[in-house]
């Protein structure tokens, strides 16, 4: 099978959906002429024209507001926000407008939009350009949240997100853009809300999000040499969260480590842990442990940033400690 980079896989998903459905339009800063800050939309302006690939001024509120309005009017916009750090600027449009319309109108209105964004943790972009807070959206029912970890998943999930009738926040990791993976040429999509067991194992379940799926897989390789078998579960979607797959895995292994690039307190790991304790308490053979960032702003110093971020070593060490 051919290999694609994460960026190419995303671009292919956008292009295929634009070819499939003329209602799909792109909107964002520098996505047209410049081809996107990360080159995800490169060539699409040339192929689909300025009607469907819209460059905008620097106004996240306008980008998201216009997308929500366009979605209400029948288009299927895919907006791009350059950094997840800027999502809060448009939070009213997301949380109070887009997320609520369908519910408040009794289903008469739909907001089929995708908000693509990326987080740059690990790329030395400083405190204001490295934030990752997908768990905020746990408090905003009405939106879906997707965290792809491989080119294959990125393409399949983006296609499903575009076809979904609800607002979808699609968060990419900047560190994953250059990673490569197998992507079939034939048409496929991946349903939202279905986790993927990236590696089966028997001793510890590691639920990892986004970039950390790759780190967890590395940890699994390291620990395999020591006779420790990790099962790596990639939820792929945070909302809805496929707790069944996670619970089934925990019932099998009896131990859970949750790895996420967000701040530990109140983060993705907190939600997964609580749900597992509620549903599978009697299966736990060890405390649930979260591997995440400390509750301080992301440091700018590369050395400090590396110390701050989760990685395969931290996941592996946590797993070893769990087995005693």
């Amino acid at each position, binding site marked *: 099978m051919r290999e694609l980079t994460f960026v190419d896989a995303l671009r292919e998903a956008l292009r295929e959906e634009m070819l499939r459905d003329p209602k799909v339009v792109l909107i964002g800063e520098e996505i047209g002429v410049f081809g996107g800050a990360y080159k995800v939309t490169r060539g699409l302006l040339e192929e689909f024209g300025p009607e469907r690939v819209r460059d905008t001024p620097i106004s996240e509120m306008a980008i998201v507001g216009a997308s929500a309005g366009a979605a209400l009017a029948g288009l299927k916009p895919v907006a791009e926000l350059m950094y997840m750090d800027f999502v809060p600027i448009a939070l009213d449009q997301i949380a109070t407008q887009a997320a609520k319309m369908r519910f408040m109108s009794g289903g008469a209105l739909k907001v089929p939009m995708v908000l693509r964004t990326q987080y740059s943790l690990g790329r030395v972009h400083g405190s204001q350009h490295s934030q990752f807070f997908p768990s905020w959206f746990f408090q905003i029912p009405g939106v879906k949240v997707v965290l792809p970890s491989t080119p294959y998943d990125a393409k399949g999930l983006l296609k499903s997100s575009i076809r979904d009738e609800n607002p979808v926040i699609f968060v990419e990791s900047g560190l994953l853009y250059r990673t490569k993976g197998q992507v079939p040429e034939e048409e496929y999509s991946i349903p939202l809300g279905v986790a993927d067991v990236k590696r089966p194992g028997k001793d510890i379940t590691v639920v990892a999000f986004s970039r950390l799926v790759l780190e967890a897989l590395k940890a699994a390789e390291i620990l395999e040499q020591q006779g420790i078998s990790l099962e790596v579960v990639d939820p792929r979607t945070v909302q809805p969260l496929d707790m069944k797959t996670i619970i089934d895995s925990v019932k099998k292994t*009896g131990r859970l480590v949750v790895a996420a690039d967000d701040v530990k307190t109140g983060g993705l790991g907190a939600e997964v842990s609580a749900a597992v304790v509620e549903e599978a*308490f009697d*299966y*736990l*053979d*060890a405390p649930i442990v979260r591997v995440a960032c400390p509750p301080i702003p992301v440091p700018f110093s590369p050395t400090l940033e590396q110390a701050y971020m989760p990685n395969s070593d931290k996941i592996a060490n946590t797993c070893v*400690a*769990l*087995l*005693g």
Partner: protein
Amino acid sequence: MPRVDPVMQEGIIKKWLKKEGDPVVKGETIALAEGEKTTFDIQAPDSGVLLRIATPEGATSQVASTIAVIGESGEQIIGVGETPEVRKVPTSEVVPQITHEGWVRASPAARRLAEEHSLDFTKLIGTGPEGRITREDVERVLEKIPARQEVVAPGVRQPRIQSVKQLAGLRKSIAERLSYSARQAVQVVVSTEVVMDNVLRVRGATGKNLSLTAFIIKAVAEALREFPELNSSLINSEIRVYDDVNIAIAVHTQDGLVAPVIPDADKKNLDEISSLIESLDRLASEKKLGVSELTGSTFTISNLGPYGVDSFAPIINPPNTAILGVGRIVKKPLVVDDEMKIKSVSNLSLVFDHRVIDGAPAATFLSRIKRILEDWPTA
């Protein structure tokens, strides 16, 4: 399933004396059952028809769970086993429940698995971090597979294991009661040597084979009337001094130690006490001691004299305040009035809970027992 002794968790139905459809009368024995310590009768809590037997012969039932349903003829039974309506047999005295001191570190998975197999996980050795008992530790016991090979430093000698037995039933009950006692009570021992010549003379004169223990019981009961603070229990923050003098005697059986009770020992004469000891011994060896024989003690006597022991310090039988250990009677040269005399002597060791009483009154109590025995009227 009634609870017939304080530590009973479950009982086995040995025999049903009634079958489904039989009429039963309140108080009538309808089944024979066996607990961890004793066999006992189960009486009908009410009159009616035995509609359904929920626990068949040979099956085990948790305390307070439904073993049968008594109702009116033709009555519909819904949800047998859901509503525990079996009465609890009241015991004559409040006895402290044996609970674990502190918290046992075990994972939820280990607890669940142990519970599913009625295994007491608190006795397992945890191999997880910080000694946590893990699912694997429970599985190992369930499958009787040996523990992960411990790393043994070269040169360290390890004894070979001949057999492994789970701590269960009476053995477990003894272990729990005695370790509870050892942890709770502040146990102090005082000893004295007692000349038993008068006792032996009286015993010989009766021509009856009176138990020597009976004399000790009689003497202790009399002394307890004078020192009621030793006839007591410390329960929570209360010292309960008892009016009844109920003396338990430690009896060895094939299965382990039991302590049947001589109730109102202070009001019984030697013959009565002696024959009661005999019948309790018999019941113990036949495993037929019931709840009324095994509860309500206020003081305990353990006589290891027949085993050739000179003296020993027993562990207090909770919730008693004290226990008396009795050694064998042996002839010894004693200096009496500056002359060497041969006397039959026995060692008495009183172990008491220093939380309840102090050394001086305990010693005075022991001297009183000695005096009663030595001055036993021979006429």
